[in-house]
């Protein structure tokens, strides 16, 4: 297995919000989905997932209900609030801007070296 990279600071919240935006989802499913989508490149430490979920819930970006899963057990399902959706949009935008800027800088430094 290739070595996995750690998540950059603050991106876990963004990723959680993105996953929750697709519909009500419980903690385990979020972990699974993050893993699948990132094709095992990004390591999401399972331990830090739950404090992040609770933090987002307290900030009012996520809301949670207890619902039955397909398997018939009760699980805590998180969904995005209106505030959460707004946060997701602005965070996504700023993340894209940042990523673009970082990419630009990286390319420029190579050009300068030649």
């Amino acid at each position, binding site marked *: 297995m290739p070595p996995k990279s750690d998540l950059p600071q603050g991106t876990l919240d963004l990723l959680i919000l993105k996953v929750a935006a697709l519909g009500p989802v419980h903690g385990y499913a979020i972990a699974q989905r993050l893993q699948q989508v990132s094709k095992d490149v990004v390591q999401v430490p399972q331990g830090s997932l739950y404090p992040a979920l609770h933090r987002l819930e307290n900030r009012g970006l996520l809301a949670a209900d207890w619902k039955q899963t397909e398997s018939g057990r009760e*699980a805590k399902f998180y969904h995005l609030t209106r505030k959460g959706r707004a946060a997701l949009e602005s965070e996504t935008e700023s993340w894209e801007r940042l990523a673009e800027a970082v990419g630009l800088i990286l390319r420029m430094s190579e050009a300068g070296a030649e």
Partner: protein
Amino acid sequence: MTWWRRLLHRDRMEEQLDRELRYHLDQYAADLIARGETPTEARRRAQIEFGGAEQIKEDCRDARGTRWAEDFALDLRYSLRALRQNPGFAAVAVFTLALGVGATTVMATLVHSVLLKPLPYAQPDRLVAVHGFETTWNVALFGDENISNPDFRDLQRQARSLDLTGWVFDNGTLSEPGDAEYVTEFDAAANMFSVFGVSPAFGRAFLPEEDRPGGAPVAILGYSFWQRRFAGNPSVLGTSVVLDTRRYTIVGIAPAQFEPRGVEAEVYTPLGQNTQPYLLKRGPHPVTAVARLAPGATLSQARSELAILGRRLAAQYPDTDKDRSFIADRLAPDVSDVRSTLWLLFGAVTLVLLITCADLASLLLARAVSREPEFAMRVALGAGRGRLVRQCLTESAVLAVAGGLLGVALAAIGIKPFVAAWPGALPRADEVSLDWRVLGFAISMSLASGLFFGLAPALRAPSSRLEQAIRAGGRTITGASRRLHGAFVACEMALAVVLLVSAGMLGDTLLRLSTVRPGLDLHNVVTARTALSPAILSDPAKTRVTWDDLLDRARHLPGVEAAAMVDTVPMRNGDNPLGYWTAPPAPPENQMPLALATSVSPDYLQVMRIPLVRGRFFDAHDTLNSEPVIAIDEVMAEHAFGKQDPVGKQIWSQLGPKPVRIAGVVGHVRYYGLANDDKTQVRDQAQVRDQLYYPFSQLPDGFVRRWSELMSIAVRTRINPLAIVEPLRGQFRAVSRDQVLYEVRTMEQLASATIEPQRFLLLLFSVFAALALFLATIGNYGVLAYLTRQRVPEIGVRIALGATAGSVTRLILRQSLTTVGIGLAFGTAAALAAARILANTVDGMAPVEPLTVALMIAVLTAAALVASLIPARRAARTDPMQALRR
């Protein structure tokens, strides 16, 4: 969910958290099984990859945002448990703090209510006092100058920036309904209540048409007077009272606690109806004026307008108003005479509070040091340093809040009795109440002191030297800690010295004052103010006859030795300073020497037993038809004539344009009270020491009425003087039914009242000093007992190496007494500074007696010795084997 709901449903949150995490684990394990792992292996891997469940739970709890509150609750529970384990410590700490906070709260309440709180009127910051100003007026002696009635009316009519009102302080005899009574009266302008922004409790204020000559005779009753005399019955509205033979219809009751300029009137009548000559002239200035700034107007605008109006009046009436102008100042409560006393007591109480805090700090510190091993253990178990500091602070905060609440409770109980015990009348006494500001001050003060003094021990919470702390097992004590303890003890000692020396000085002062000779014989003399029948007063000849008759009747009462009339009784409120000169022309008014003038009847010397030094006093031959004479006292004789014999010399005074002949010289009387007659101690009005007497019988007819209204009767008896009061009153009534005696006082009561402030201060300072002594001794004992206990192993070694019990005792005592000695040295220096403050604040203060200081230091040293002896003896009895094994 809001955070407090999260806090409230803590158990449910925990349960849900647990379920959520378990679901994750189970689901992960199930997936692993589905991928072919064995159930045991799946569960193992799931748990490893998930990480420590407890750690995650902690992180989730932190994310909840209620963590600090939960920790606080935990700390609180823990603190209470820790304090319950050591109830003696908790009780001493709480009670000590309660005393300090309670006393400080009482004084803070008084300072706030009396000195700082705005006046109880609507928008008090818009109210201004308006008074006259003349360069010849002696403000230091007589206070601010009032305004003449015609000037007042002109200003009231013309001023645009001010809504001006005014009143004249007056007295009268209220003769119906019921027994005749002498009452305090305000002749008030119609707009008085509206300018102050108050409204009558019942009925109405005066109407503008009643505030004029010939207006309908109406009166308003003062609230307290109405309560006392008419039992607060509102149906008195519309009935009538007879005041100075005139019948008035009651139209209103003044609001409760309405005391403009510190006086609550008993009856109000319209100023404009009073047409006595002194209210029609511009010379006399009896009107006290207060104004409300017009909307939008500023104080400086009002001042300039008053200046313009004053110049106009000066041009119009040069005879009276030439040098007169008018000034306005913000209306402030009249509290000058208690201001310094209140601040003095506040200072003393603050010292007590500081001692309390030092006591608390040393107790907390001692406790923290002895708990070092416990803290070290908690650090070892994973408690963060911040967490420990917070725990320590919570504990001292619990103590502080408990002490603060108890202190506030003590203050709430104590404040009324304290105000009642205040000597004389405390200004604004009925405005004194604990209010939320002072309560907030008290609680935050105790919390602050708890947190501040809890900080030192809290910061000792071990961090780096964890291992040593556990290993030492609390056996060693560092030099720094010992010095800190010493500093607390030294502070307590120093503060105690200040309070003890102050109390000692006040004691000296009282002792000295109780032996001063007042210049008259206080024993068996009774005095009373009088009000003759208004019908008699209207006729000067009849008044003179009535006085002779009354004195004669008094003289013939059984048990009476002599009786006299006197306008200003020594040691009672009120005086009559007059300018005098020994050769014409008269010097300017504000440069004249002043003498206290007293109008008396011939027997006055016998009644008061004032010695006649030279010449003669008055007798029945001094009448309107004989040459006017006066008698002067020794002080005035020396002041005015030096070594010459004043008898037979002429003297001019403000009594009249013609000179009078000096008939005799009499002894000096301590007129202003036992405490206020020293040349070095004179303040305010007491600066007038010259005294002169003139006979009532030679007073011109025009003055007889006013003087008679001011007259008191003084009687010397062979029996208990109070026993003749009722027979005397009977004689006054026998002459006319509406004649009254009031303010009956024996000279002993009056003299005693003059040193009541000193006695009161002595009492308070004695209590403070005793408290300080007690607290300092406890603090000293506590710290030393604790330090000695910490040194048991060391002492064990010393004894094992051959130290004797005596040398160990000496070792401990030396350590204690060095600290005490430093405290005493600083304290003595501070006490000398405090002595100067006392001397400036308290009348008749004795200078610092070295003997007093020495005595107080001896008392403190003795107390410190006793406090140190117990731990020292205990140390000396240490069993070396046990000590070393510990």
